[in-house]
């Protein structure tokens, strides 16, 4: 599949959402935010089966979580994280994850290149609306 822009709820996220409804959960919240630079080179479009980014860069950040309203009150999980580039980066993919490293992917996204100079930051706002 060629590169394309997409933002998808992965199969892993669906499992997490179901798990988090239990009294005792086994998965952590997908609050960590990560970005990568490899989607274009890998000719990858974000898909439900994704488990990781093509080429993740920088350290994941623990996003600020909240529930916000998209259609009905509080129907959307939101995590907002800001990542600073330690080198010039050509960012074209991002994800949420339930851990600061490895872990389980939540939302997977591929998008048109965002050029960051060293020291620039990218604020990523992920939303997952339950419909």
């Amino acid at each position, binding site marked *: 599949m060629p590169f394309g822009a997409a933002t*998808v709820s992965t199969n892993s996220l*669906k499992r997490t959402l179901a798990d988090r409804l239990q009294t005792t959960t086994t998965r952590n919240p997908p609050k960590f935010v990560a970005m990568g630079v490899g989607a274009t080179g890998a000719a990858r479009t974000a898909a439900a089966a994704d488990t990781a980014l093509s080429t993740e860069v920088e350290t994941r950040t623990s996003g600020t979580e909240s529930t916000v309203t998209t259609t009905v009150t509080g129907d959307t999980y939101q995590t907002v994280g800001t990542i600073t580039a*330690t080198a010039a980066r050509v960012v074209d993919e991002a994800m949420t994850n339930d851990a600061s490293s490895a872990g389980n992917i939540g939302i997977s996204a591929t998008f048109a290149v965002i050029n960051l100079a*060293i020291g620039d*930051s990218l604020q990523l706002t992920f939303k997952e*609306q339950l*419909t």
Partner: protein
Amino acid sequence: MAESKAVEQGSAASLETDVIPSRDRTFRIVIAHKDEDHPNATEFAWRRVFVVNPDFHGPEYDPLADAKSQLKQAREEYPTAEGYEHRIQVLAPAGPDSHEWQEV
């Protein structure tokens, strides 16, 4: 017997991105003048350096816009028609040896 029906449901993911330019960027405007006696060499006839210091600028300060404004002034003082070349050099906050050239 009751008939069960699937209820259409699912989830919708979205992502918004916002680039936050570094407030530590240093822009150096370089004005070069080709030495006619040494055509393969480019000598720096003059350069202007200014550092973005968050302590002296408000949150709306745009360092790149400021650099471009300075560049415009430099082009007026040192015209391209007289052989001067102008560029903005973006210096990394990591150190003077880490830099890149930026198109202006």
